[in-house]
């Protein structure tokens, strides 16, 4: 938990932004796939902190990559250098470790791309190999970061493979198979990844759920335990789960 200074924001076109914060403790401690909860000083509306995966770090700085879609993310995109936010984190359980020489395929949908830069950096350091499969509706919805190459799929064929990123991977599976599969993106995509590949390779899914606290305090972010009765908490037990740990269905006391 630290008061973090905004260093600057870069617009990536559309409603996408990257904001850089001076946040030494989080930059030091964060693991790929972990997230932070950001709240705005002196502001009661929005009231709750907002969840963001840590996109990348550099020295004492943390980068958050986000789509400005509502009150909180819009406010974040309008912060200026020198403004302060409170950043709680790093929170949650990130992606698992990968040994040197192993191959990971990283499947991302839309702004799920946020998790890639830090993940790629750490995999490189580990001397693990990876390949990124990135899917979006159209070319303009695809997200790219400098120096990170991706194999793209678009629903309308405007860039790369014509079809979903899941179809693209299915095709690629016929030639090759990774040691692990990591996925981050919309729930529909995660469900498809789970059902298509969950049984084939060790697969890890980074889930999104509405969160009030991010710390396991509120029980607001349940994710159904596979087969079992109860729920995991997306914030504390996740946001990254092994594919076979969770169900995307419902199922509460009232069922």
């Amino acid at each position: 938990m630290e008061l973090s200074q905004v260093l600057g924001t870069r617009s990536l076109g559309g409603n996408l932004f990257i904001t850089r914060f001076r946040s030494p403790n989080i930059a030091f401690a964060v693991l790929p796939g972990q997230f932070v909860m950001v709240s705005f000083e002196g502001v009661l509306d929005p009231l709750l902190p907002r969840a963001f995966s840590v996109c990348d770090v550099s020295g004492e700085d943390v980068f958050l990559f986000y789509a400005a879609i509502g009150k909180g993310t819009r406010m974040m995109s309008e912060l200026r250098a020198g403004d302060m936010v409170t950043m709680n984190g790093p929170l949650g359980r990130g992606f698992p470790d990968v040994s040197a020489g192993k191959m990971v395929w990283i499947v991302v949908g839309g702004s799920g791309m946020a998790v890639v830069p830090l993940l790629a950096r750490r995999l490189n350091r580990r001397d693990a190999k990876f390949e990124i499969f990135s899917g979006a509706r159209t070319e303009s919805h695809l997200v790219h970061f400098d120096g990170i190459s991706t194999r793209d799929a678009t629903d309308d064929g405007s860039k790369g493979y014509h079809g979903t990123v899941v179809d693209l991977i299915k095709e690629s599976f016929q030639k090759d198979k990774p040691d692990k599969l990591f996925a981050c993106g919309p729930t529909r995509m995660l469900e498809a990844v789970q059902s298509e590949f969950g049984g084939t390779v060790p697969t890890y899914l980074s889930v999104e759920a509405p969160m009030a606290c991010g710390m396991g305090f509120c029980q607001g972010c349940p994710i159904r335990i596979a087969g079992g009765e109860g729920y995991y908490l997306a914030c504390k037990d996740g946001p990254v789960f092994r594919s076979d740990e969770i169900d995307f269905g419902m199922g509460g006391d009232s069922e």
Partner: protein
Amino acid sequence: MNSDLTVEIGSLHLKNPLMTASGTCGYGDELEDYFPISRLGAIVSKSLTLKPKKGNEPPRITEVSCGMLNSIGLANIGVQRFISDKLPVLKRLGAEVIVNIAAKRADDYVSLAEIVAGLPEVKGLELNLSCPNVKEGGLEFGSDIAALGRITDLVRRVYPEVLIVKLTPNVARIGEFAKAAEGAGANGVTVANTYVGMAVDIYRRTPKIRSITGGFSGPAIKPLTMAKVFEVHNAVKIPVIASGGVFGWQDAVEYLIAGATAVELGTVLFRIPDASTGILDGIQSYMVREGLESLRELIGSLKANLDRMPHK
């Protein structure tokens, strides 16, 4: 010179008036990552039930202007696992523990109270007679004065330590409910649980939380709960514990002036888990600045002519 911030609720002596609100900091031990929980007046546990409960289906929470709605559905590990897994940790961390219980039958409240009664680590019991989010959450009892009195009385018979009744605000005259709790032997009343609220997703045309309505908390509800704390303070002699929308130290002071003996921190913990630290500092400086030596001088010190109230 520091002012005296200690307060008493029945025989329970608190080092300061700040408590956690049930269900807003897990089981309390998780808070220790952010500050020493021994510094709190008390920790109130998540509502515990006889058996573990997995809680309601998602979505369970949504944000509204200056507040949130929740429908957690009393998801909890059950009283036994709390006692075996959590209580020893809380004890080791030096926390003062108040256990909050919920049930769907009067008998179960009694059973829960009996289980807790023997535990030296537990300093008091808060009866949740007010959860708006489960069919068996006590709201039916909590909005029926006779039932509230009866359950309080039954629990009182088996529970010798400090007994607090947490009231629902979703009634017309909360003072009458507080009187019933007092009459049945409660040592204090918590005012109040969440308000019944609702929000709609205009694109899907569905409720934003799955149980349609949810419990409304946060700064938005503070003026409502303030009026109710003042009403209850004027209706009963036992201490009132305020719970509703406290974010800054000023909010806590407002409640104390309006008649609260202690103040629970709820939704604020989701954003500022160590809020109690800043709030205690704020109260302390305020007391010194205003020349107040003890919280007793502040509590209920509102200068107000009740004749000016349109409806008493």
